[in-house]
Each structure stands twice: as structure tokens, then as C-alpha cells.
């Protein structure tokens, strides 16, 4: 890999940590965001707006449970609408956290240290929200536990040959492993918060969750061993999750779904949207909490480079889909591609090409990679583009499949939009609570990095 430790410290103005920091000052700086800093109006304003959106989401779920999925625009032939698109989009966003934490850890990319914690939190929240959508979409969501293999009185078992059952296992495993990985990394920091706590309540709550962590040498050794192994396990897991999600589509024979490119194409898209979301979150975080010294330009630039690279994987996916349709000589596949580019959803297709393929090319310029406003806008553009891609995969393939007599259009209703925007609100609420109550940057890892820099 390009980033050798020696190279990171010698590049002028790009050192990973500013000089003059001590163990005490890094600890206090990050811990005090949680412990003593009072919330200011930008936090309250964002939180309130997001809270309203989240409540709207709950309201929409209530209406959905009472009335049924008919409140959405879905019907036959387009029985999968926003709910499935949102699910795929959110689970994709939930991939970058594990990628940053696990894969970059294994590759010894030290720069990941200041962004892994909040990226993991992002993963957890996004994957959790993603998991809600298929359940909402079930029609009879109260029976979702039938997917769980348990010895029930009906003597029924899940259908193991169905990708939807695989998906249930993939998502629940991913959520559990992400939670455990995140929490394991948090334990030493929770101990720091317990010891630095200013009030009895803080001390009790952080103390309970710190589980009595003391930082003994053998404890650290086991912690590190388990953390590294978990990273090794999470690496194939993260690849498997979106692959399995893509099989929900690829196993079906609908034109536009039935394709072997889907698993890698979905994984690349997941990393692409995930890194875009990391940028969307990192930029306001460093701005409002004064974390410029920890989340440096170098971090943002590296994220931008990953964005550029994964953007090309995604572009390759688009190209391959089109090529394979013609190469297969299957009239339905060819029609699907033509319909995607010129049919009723063509504006969405060209918008997504603009957002996902054309817009990221600006990252070739160093000046653009180093401009915070450009990066922020681009990250939003990519997030939007990836949502449109998910929408298009789900809807455009279904709306005109084989027999023209069975064609139809999907038009989203206001409830579709409320569920989408409401889920974004819920994500923001969870993230805002996270940055107020937990250290957004791993304090113990920053101390370790400081020690390595001092001794090198």
C-alpha cells in the first residue's frame, strides 16, 4: 500500500496528528465533546428537524400497519417499490463503516483511526434502518419472525433455497457483528469517559457499559487479538452481505435482475455510497466540533480517492449490464436496456449516470479533492445518485418485463416519500445522539498513534 508510516509523517502539512498533543490533551479534547460541551443551536436545530422527520416516519409506519402497503404506489407488476430500493440503499451505506474499520485495519492504513468510530456508528444505524424496510414491505409485518428457524407449533421451516431467507441471515449477522465490533472498540473509551465523568449519572452509565475495563496488559492483548480477528471476519462478511442482497434480484429471471455481475456490482456500489456518506457526515462533524486536527484534509482526500475508484467500479457495472444485454442477444434484456435509457424512467437513468459516473470525475483534480465544499456537495450528489440507481434497478426492471399486456408504471405516493425522508431523519437523529453521548473518534487508538509517532 502507498501509505507507509514513514511516508505519512514526512509529507509536509499532512501529518496524521498535530505536534504538541499529549495523551492528556487528546483524551480531554475528544472526551469533553461528550462530557462537558454544551449543545449549541446547530445541534438542536438539526436534531429537531430530524426528530420531526423521524416522527413522521413512525406515523407513516402506523398508517402502513393499519391500512397496508396499498398506501404506497406499488401494485402488480411493480410490487417492489421504494421500500426495497430504500433497503438496498441503506444497507449499501452501511458498508463503508465496516470497510474502514476492518479492511483498512488489516491493510494497516493508519489514517483510518480518526474516522473508523463514527463510520462504524453510521454502519450500525444505516444497517438497522435498512433492516426495517423489508419488514415494513411484508404486508403482514407481524409475521416476519416466520423467517427465523424455530421449532414452531405449525412444524414449518424456512425455505433455505430462497435468497430472501439468506438475506435475513446476512443482514441479522451483519447487524450483530457490526454492533459487537463497534462496542468492543468502544469499551476502553467508555472506561475513559467513566474516569473523566463530571457527574454521578455519567459515571454510572459509562461505568456500566465500560464493564469495569481497567486496561491491564493481558486484557489489552486479548482485546487486540479479538479485535483483529473480528476485522478478519468482518471483511468477507461485508462482501457477502451485499452479494446476498444482490442475489435477491439476480436469482429471479426478470430482465435486468438476472445477471452474474450483480454481486460485485452491488458491493462496489455499497462502498461508493458508503464513502459518500462518510464524507457527508465527516465534514459537518469536523466543522462543528472543531476536529480539524483529527479529521484532516488528508482523510477527506483519501475518502475522495476511494470514491473515485469505487465510482469506476460502479461505472463498469453499468457498462457491463448494457454490454451483456446485447451480447446475450436476449430480446427482453435488450429491451430492458433500451427502455431504461429511453423509457418512462429515462430521466432517472441519465440523472444517475450524471451523479455517479460524471460528477465524481472532478476528483481527478487535486484542488477539488482538497476543497471541503466541493467534497460535501459531491458526497450528497453521489448519495442521491446511488439512491436513484437502487430505485431504477428495482422499478425499471419490473415495470416492463415480458408480456406488454402485463406492463405498468410505478408512481410514488406521498407515503413513499415520507418513508424515505423519515428514514433519513431517523438516521440523523441516531447519529446526532451518538455524537453527543459517545466519543466520535476512538480515543485509545489516537493515544496509541501518538505513542507510535513519538517513538518513531
Amino acid at each position: 500500500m502507498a501509505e507507509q508510516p514513514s511516508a505519512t509523517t514526512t509529507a509536509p502539512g499532512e501529518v496524521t496528528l498535530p505536534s504538541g498533543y499529549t495523551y492528556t490533551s487528546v483524551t480531554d479534547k475528544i472526551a469533553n465533546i461528550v462530557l462537558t460541551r454544551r449543545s449549541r443551536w446547530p445541534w438542536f436545530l438539526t436534531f429537531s428537524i430530524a426528530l420531526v422527520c423521524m416522527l413522521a416516519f413512525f406515523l407513516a409506519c402506523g398508517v402502513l400497519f393499519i391500512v397496508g402497503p396499498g398506501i404506497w404506489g406499488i401494485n402488480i407488476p411493480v410490487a417492489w417499490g421504494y421500500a426495497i430500493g430504500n433497503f438496498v440503499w441503506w444497507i449499501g451505506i452501511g458498508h463503508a463503516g465496516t470497510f474502514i474499520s476492518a479492511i483498512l485495519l488489516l491493510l494497516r492504513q493508519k489514517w483510518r483511526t480518526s474516522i473508523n468510530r463514527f463510520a462504524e456508528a453510521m454502519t450500525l444505524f444505516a444497517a438497522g434502518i435498512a433492516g426495517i424496510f423489508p419488514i415494513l414491505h411484508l404486508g403482514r409485518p407481524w409475521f416476519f419472525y416466520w423467517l427465523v428457524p424455530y421449532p414452531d407449533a405449525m412444524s414449518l421451516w424456512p425455505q433455505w433455497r430462497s435468497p430472501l431467507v439468506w438475506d435475513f441471515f446476512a443482514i441479522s449477522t451483519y447487524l450483530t457483528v457490526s454492533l459487537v465490533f463497534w462496542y468492543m472498540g468502544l469499551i476502553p473509551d467508555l472506561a475513559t469517559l467513566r474516569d473523566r465523568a463530571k457527574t454521578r449519572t455519567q459515571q454510572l452509565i459509562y461505568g456500566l457499559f465500560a464493564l469495569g475495563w481497567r486496561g491491564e496488559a493481558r486484557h489489552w492483548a486479548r482485546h487486540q487479538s479479538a479485535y483483529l480477528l473480528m476485522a478478519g471476519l468482518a471483511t468477507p462478511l461485508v462482501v457477502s452481505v451485499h452479494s446476498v442482497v444482490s442475489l435477491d434480484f439476480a436469482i429471479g429471471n426478470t430482465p435486468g435482475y438476472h445477471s452474474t455481475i450483480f454481486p460485485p456490482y452491488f458491493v462496489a456500489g455499497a462502498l461508493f455510497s458508503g464513502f459518500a456518506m462518510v464524507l457527508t457526515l465527516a465534514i459537518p462533524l469536523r466543522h462543528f466540533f472543531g476536529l480539524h486536527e483529527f479529521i484532516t484534509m488528508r482523510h477527506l482526500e483519501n475518502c475522495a480517492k476511494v470514491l473515485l475508484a469505487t465510482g469506476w467500479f460502479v461505472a463498469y457495472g453499468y457498462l457491463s449490464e448494457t454490454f451483456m444485454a446485447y451480447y446475450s442477444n436476449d430480446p427482453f434484456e435488450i429491451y430492458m436496456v433500451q427502455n431504461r435509457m429511453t423509457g418512462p424512467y429515462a430521466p432517472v437513468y441519465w440523472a444517475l449516470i450524471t451523479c455517479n459516473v460524471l460528477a465524481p470525475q472532478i476528483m481527478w483534480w487535486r484542488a477539488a479533492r482538497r476543497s471541503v465544499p466541493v467534497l460535501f456537495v459531491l458526497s450528497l450528489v453521489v448519495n442521491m445518485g446511488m439512491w436513484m440507481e437502487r430505485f431504477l434497478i428495482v422499478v425499471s426492471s419490473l415495470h416492463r418485463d415480458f408480456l406488454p399486456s402485463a406492463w405498468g408504471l410505478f408512481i410514488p405516493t406521498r407515503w413513499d416519500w415520507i418513508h424515505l425522508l423519515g428514514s433519513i431523519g431517523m438516521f440523523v437523529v441516531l447519529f446526532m445522539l451518538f455524537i453527543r453521548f459517545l466519543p466520535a473518534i476512538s480515543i485509545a487508538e489516537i493515544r496509541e498513534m501518538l505513542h507510535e509517532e513519538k517513538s518513531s
Partner: protein
Amino acid sequence: MTGYGLLAEFKTAEDLVEAARRARAAGYRRVEAYSPFPVEGLVEAVGSYKDRIPLLTLLGGIVGGAGGYFMQWYSAVVAYPIDQGGRPYHSWPAFIPVTFELAVLGAALAAFFGMLALNGLPKLYHPLFNVPEFELASRSRFFLFIRYDDRRHDAPGARDFLASLQPLRLMEVPR
């Protein structure tokens, strides 16, 4: 009333590693070292340590994967066989994704809970928490601790020994 042990505070990680090494060399066996981040070489310095986490993780993975596969085989072949388009009941390729996920789940949970169990966590009360200065162990300082029930322990000797390492502070830990 006898205390729990003696705690010496050091300024740098290197001092702590050196102190732990000398304590072991002097014959102390119940030596514990506390640091605000994992320090390389410290675990070797404080004494014998065998990393059992990889083995536990492997076992967890095997149990998860084998159990997951068995569950699918049992339900699809024995408990609830369905003829699905003439496919064999034991259609193993379709069982792989769930087997893989459950193997990862088993391994990850074994790694996490194994780490907690071997570390004796959760342990919300520990005598060291009675020492106010010990809170720096999660912030900036490095501590060496020798328990009074160390077999080589004769109280004045241990105090003199720790003092000879020139710690920043030397503290008695009450039980």
C-alpha cells in the same frame, strides 16, 4: 487490615515496560501493568500469556457453521421435506450462504465473549478503583501493580523494590 497491593505510576510506556521486566526478573509473579492504550511488548514483560482467543474464535466458527448446516439439512431433509421443482432435498449449494453467515456469527460472538470471559469482565468493582490516581490509567499514565499475595512478597521489600524503579508516585491499594 491488609491491603490489596502496591501501585506504582510511570510517565511513559517505555518506563512501564522496563519496570515490568525488572519486576519479573526480581521474582515477582503477580505483576499487572495498566496502560491507556495497548503497549507493544508489555504483555511479554508482565509474564506468561497465552493467547487463547484465536482458538475460541475458530471453535465458535466451526460450531456456528456446522450447526447452521445441520439445521438446514435437518429441516430440509428430515423435518420438512418439500419437493421444489425436483431438486434434491439435500441441495447443498443453496445451504452455503446461511452456513457462511452463521459461521461468521459464531466466530465473532466467540471472539467477543471469549475476550470478556478470559479478561474476567464485566467486573464493575475492583480494588484498584479505590485509588483516585488510577483514573489516569485510562488517560495518560502507566501503572505497575504488585499484589500482596505474590509469593515473593514481603511488604517492605516490595515497597523498596518499587521505589527503586523511581516511579512518579507509589500508592497503597486498599482491598
